[in-house]
């Protein structure tokens, strides 16, 4: 009954999305205010129904109702409850339902909270949101129904991929999806503003909190995902340029560009058409990303052969939404009036360069991600594009981007003199030169990219604090703090990346019990290897003692064997200290009773994720600051 109720709720929600689109469309065409007034409530009810369907699916997973095909294929009665719960979205159908749920809830939030936009633009926005929703409801209902029954029900479920059985699953995908789908609101705002020919600062101010919010969540999601891959895969790497990772990076790059251009539009009324274009691109990247990951089309064209309906459906949806939005853009871009002008040397000028560079990096990542797919579908030849390509092509641009990030906030709006800039940058440049000498002295023979990374990180870090220089810190607005902290976070993260790639020490050894190894500042000894058991796995667990200058601690890496489904995973053991992380992986034993150990000493690697968290915190401060200021202005206007 629960599954049928969920399916019914989904059908109803889809029908309401259709109604919402129709009401908005005809209401706008024929100036029918009664129809327009109904759009908001319909959007809210649609969200409630979708939320209900999603809650019912979670309930089915928690109860392990094996008569539902999706539950039988992914759930298992012996799984800890957290993974039963999070396993709801650890599969294609469930995650698509989560996607649609967030889409509908975001639409409802716009309907309930948005009061700044005029009614017509808002209605057009909600209609656009409904149009997106409609396509995804169709995709769920016709090509990936999460509530399909299985008859006869199997005695036990097949379980969840052990690599996913980690607390990260409860946090990482929902955060990322919230970010992806938050960008749908920006997309809908852009479409709405194009439809009603209302592209201007008021539209930008309405869109900005949504862009910021989505961007914060994307930042958190990517940071968390990177750390998850780092400790779960046991490969010691934190970013693999894997297509799935790129799929989350591309919307982030577009959202970062959009975030900056929407600020220009909101405060200086410039970059109108470009901002609308970026909003379309950002959500297009979200959709491309989601589908690349969820359909499997990316890495293997054979996925089409497995379920041709799904693949074709996906391509059709992408073509309709991206093509439709671009066509609307092309038709209406002429009606977007020229915004105000600015000098090349100005804050706006720097932000334009920031946007161009971000878009170029986005293009490089997109090309590298899609190239294998295109080649395979055209010639049948298989190839993979990996870190050498991405580092070589995107790395230099990213470093230039950092330099622009350091300079931009120190420029005045509209026009500025290069001379003044030199004065404001004197201290950061001095710090960069000092660090250049310092790095050359302390670490000769360091490779060029990490070297530039370290120097830039220090210089950019100093420069990102410069906007606070000579300011009364207590009276500095919250969003300035936000910007400073976010930019500083980028520098911190860059420092971590450069340090990790330049100074990591790795040892791979076959060790007898009691034998000592040296890695970095640590002396490491494998004390014992014991079998242990968990809720749905057994493992061999090594006990490793690490000693450094009289202090010692124990690490317990495991090699786990899950029985549902039968898979083995390596659980690395990681110890964080103030100046880095010690990372230990236990391999297998050889005939002589020696155990393979993989040991890493990674100085300051934690800065990578700490920086990511700082970026997100900076974003949150900026969001709070903007909202608070808007509320104050609104109250003042209400009094006047």
């Amino acid at each position, binding site marked *: 009954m629960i599954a049928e109720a969920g399916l019914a709720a989904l059908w109803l929600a889809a029908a309401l999305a259709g109604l919402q689109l129709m009401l908005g469309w005809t209401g706008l065409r024929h100036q029918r205010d009664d129809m327009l007034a109904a759009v908001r409530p319909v959007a809210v009810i649609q969200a409630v129904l979708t939320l209900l369907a999603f809650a019912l699916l979670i309930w089915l997973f928690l109860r392990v109702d094996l008569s539902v095909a999706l539950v039988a294929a992914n759930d298992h009665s012996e799984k800890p409850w957290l993974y039963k719960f999070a396993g709801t979205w650890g599969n294609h159908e469930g995650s698509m339902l989560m996607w649609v749920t967030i889409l509908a809830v975001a639409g409802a939030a716009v309907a309930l909270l948005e009061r700044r936009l005029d009614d017509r633009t808002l209605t057009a926005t909600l209609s656009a949101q409904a149009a997106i929703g409609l396509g995804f409801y169709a995709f769920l209902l016709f090509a990936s129904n999460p509530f399909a029954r299985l008859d006869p029900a199997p005695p036990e479920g097949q379980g969840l991929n052990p690599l996913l059985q980690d607390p990260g699953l409860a946090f990482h995908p929902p955060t990322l999806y919230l970010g992806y789908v938050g960008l749908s609101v920006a997309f809908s705002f852009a479409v709405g503003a194009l439809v009603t020919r209302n592209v201007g600062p008021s539209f930008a101010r309405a869109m900005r909190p949504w862009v910021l919010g989505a961007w914060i969540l994307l930042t958190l999601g990517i940071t968390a995902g990177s750390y998850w891959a780092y400790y779960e895969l046991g490969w010691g790497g934190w970013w693999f340029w894997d*297509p799935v990772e790129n799929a989350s990076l591309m919307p982030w790059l577009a959202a970062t560009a959009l975030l900056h251009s929407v600020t220009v539009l909101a405060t200086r009324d410039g970059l109108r058409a470009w901002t609308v274009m970026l909003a379309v691109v950002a959500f297009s990247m979200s959709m491309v990303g989601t589908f690349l990951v969820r359909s499997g089309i990316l*890495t293997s064209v054979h996925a089409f052969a497995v379920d041709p309906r799904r693949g074709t459906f996906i391509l059709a949806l992408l073509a309709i939404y991206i093509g439709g939005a671009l066509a609307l853009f092309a038709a209406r871009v002429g009606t977007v009036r020229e915004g105000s002008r600015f000098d090349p040397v100005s804050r706006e000028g720097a932000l334009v360069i920031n946007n161009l560079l971000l878009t170029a990096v986005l293009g490089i990542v997109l090309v590298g991600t899609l190239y294998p797919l295109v080649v395979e579908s055209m010639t049948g*030849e298989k*190839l993979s594009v990996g870190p050498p*390509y991405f580092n070589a092509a995107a790395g230099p641009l990213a470093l230039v981007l950092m330099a622009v990030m350091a300079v931009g906030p120190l420029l005045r709006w509209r026009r500025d003199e290069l001379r003044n800039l030199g004065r404001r940058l004197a201290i950061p440049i001095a710090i960069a030169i000092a660090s250049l000498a310092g790095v050359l002295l302390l670490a000769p023979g360091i490779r060029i990219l990490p070297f530039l990374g370290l120097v830039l990180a220090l210089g950019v870090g100093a420069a990102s604090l410069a906007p606070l220089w000579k300011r009364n810190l207590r009276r500095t607005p919250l969003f300035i703090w936000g910007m400073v902290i976010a930019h500083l976070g980028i520098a911190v993260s860059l420092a971590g990346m450069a340090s990790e790639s330049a100074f990591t020490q790795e040892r791979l050894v076959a060790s007898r019990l009691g034998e000592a190894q040296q890695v970095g500042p640590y002396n490491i000894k494998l004390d014992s290897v014991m079998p242990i058991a968990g809720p749905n796995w057994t493992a061999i667990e090594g006990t490793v003692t690490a000693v450094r200058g009289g202090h010692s601690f124990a690490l317990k890496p495991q090699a786990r064997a899950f029985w549902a489904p039968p898979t083995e995973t390596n659980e690395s053991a990681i110890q964080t200290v103030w100046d880095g992380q010690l990372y230990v992986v236990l391999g297998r034993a050889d005939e002589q009773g020696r155990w393979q150990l*993989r040991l890493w000493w990674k100085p300051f690697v934690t800065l990578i994720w700490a920086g990511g968290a700082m970026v997100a915190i900076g974003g949150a401060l900026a969001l709070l600051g903007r909202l608070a200021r808007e509320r104050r202005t609104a109250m003042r206007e209400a009094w006047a």
Partner: protein
Amino acid sequence: MKAKHQRLVLVLLAVAAMIGAALLAMSALKDQAAYFYTPSDAAHDRVEPGKAVRLGGMVANKSIAHDPDGVTTRFVVTDGQTTVPVRFTGITPDLFKENSGVVAEGSFAPDGSFVATNILAKHDERYMPPQVAGSMHKSESLEK
């Protein structure tokens, strides 16, 4: 500068940046894309030594041997017609065994042997990384 001119300059800059990025991407792709080879492909195409490629096939029967250092593994990859000796230093995946599929990432040495930096073995049928699944598909058809 007139408004129209400014817009034009912006558009030109954007186009130039995009073309530059595309050229950069294309040249990097030409050098860096790692192709997938079976031992026969590799023998036929004479892959340049040192170029990053993937080698896929079956681990030949009774070919796995361990060096005395305990962390270096040697084995032979075969596709039924040609064989390539492979050396790998590291922890091999759990399902790496003789007579089953394997994909080795790395490069050829001048003597025609293969030095692997990473080994992707066949995981549980359902949980293979898609990229591996694609490559494995090719070597699996050899299995039959």
